[in-house]
């Protein structure tokens, strides 16, 4: 029998080079699902996947690892993804983490696991700046990818060589256009991950000479494509990659944080200290306050005060049908103190 990687080896003209490679994908939504499947099929040695969300019915249109049953059970994406990709390739070691990839969680992963590559499967700029600082601090390349509507963008960031994300974008952009407002179609996702995935395969095979050093962007509906050389944008005084880099996005502040999730009409509330909640205990607290509660062992769903909420074991709460971060924070404090 031919090796399962024979066609890839034929193309690469070398024996399977990915066995000892470890990739960390941050986010298991549309981009993360596609990237995870691509790399697991390509036969990397280890994949770590971190995601803070659970599978929702509106994800099924484009998030290729998930099925109706996952949405019905509201499985955490990391868990549902693990099951599916392990079925695809049982030879890959998979680590699936359900948590909000903040500075603390991701720094710990970098310290302990030293992945060879970081892949962007996130849906927000804040986490991308954080990935960028981790990449610089730990000297690990990362591949930016993002999409909305019918457009997508990708760029390889190599520490010590290319400009970094902070060089390209000196301020956190106001997110005028998200999957919430502009929608998203699956081909825009797949085109974005095709660019990210190709660069990943080059980097993991050590083919540095073939790696794209340009920022690529496209629109699959308007039929446009651009590829821009970005080396002129590297800044020597960049706070993330310059001579006196101080990695501003790695500084954790200890406040309750809120974030509006892309495409979900949902606000996440994240308490400052990581604490683990007992879901049964939590359910009884909420039931006493008049909530109707269900749980699947990983998380708890409830309708309370006319809001649908989901609570994870790490203390995070999602408030659905809301784009109001302050209101969500207030509700959190109301329910859990």
């Amino acid at each position, binding site marked *: 029998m031919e090796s399962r990687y024979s066609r890839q080896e034929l193309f690469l003209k070398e024996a399977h080079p990915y066995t000892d490679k470890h990739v960390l994908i941050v986010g298991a939504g549309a981009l993360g699902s596609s990237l995870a499947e691509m790399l697991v099929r390509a036969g990397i040695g280890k994949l770590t996947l971190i995601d803070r969300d659970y599978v929702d019915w509106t994800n099924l249109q484009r998030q290729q690892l998930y099925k109706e049953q996952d949405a019905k059970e509201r499985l955490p994406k990391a868990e549902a993804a693990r099951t599916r990709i392990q079925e695809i390739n049982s030879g890959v070691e998979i680590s699936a983490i359900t948590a909000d990839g903040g500075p603390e969680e991701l720094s710990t992963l970098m310290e302990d696991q030293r992945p060879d590559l970081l892949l962007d499967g996130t849906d927000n700029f804040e986490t991308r700046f954080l990935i960028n600082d981790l990449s610089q601090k730990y000297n690990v390349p990362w591949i930016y990818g993002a999409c909305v509507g019918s457009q997508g963008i990708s760029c390889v960031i190599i520490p010590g060589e290319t400009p970094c994300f902070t060089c390209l974008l000196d301020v956190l952009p106001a997110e005028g256009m998200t999957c919430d407002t502009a929608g998203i179609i699956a081909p825009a996702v797949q085109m*974005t991950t095709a660019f990210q995935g190709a660069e990943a395969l080059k980097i993991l095979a050590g083919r540095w000479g073939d790696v794209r050093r340009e920022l690529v962007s496209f629109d699959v509906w308007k039929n446009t494509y*651009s590829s821009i*050389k970005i080396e002129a944008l590297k800044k020597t005084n960049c706070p993330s990659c310059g001579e006196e880099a101080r990695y501003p996005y790695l500084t954790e502040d200890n406040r309750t944080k809120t974030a509006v999730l892309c495409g979900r009409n949902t606000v996440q509330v994240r308490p400052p200290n990581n604490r683990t909640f007992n879901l049964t205990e939590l359910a009884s607290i909420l039931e006493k306050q008049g909530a109707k509660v269900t749980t699947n062992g990983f998380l708890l769903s409830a309708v309370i005060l006319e809001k649908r909420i989901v609570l994870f074991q790490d203390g995070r709460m999602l408030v659905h049908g809301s784009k109001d971060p302050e209101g969500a924070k207030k509700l959190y404090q109301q329910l859990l103190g």
Partner: protein
Amino acid sequence: MNIIINGKEEQMALQEPTLEQLLAAYSLQGKSVIIEANGQIVPKEKIGSTTVKEGDRIEIVQFVGGG
């Protein structure tokens, strides 16, 4: 005036022939973009003063955050 924008020829009627007006025509003013004009990156502070002319090749890349 005909300009090649992101690889596609477009006919543009701009009040003033500047990159800033071009961005405005695409509703991209003040958004996070990188612009390349005829193969050269245009620094942010020069977007207002850079003129565009017939046949220019302009690449406009907007950073998006979804995924």
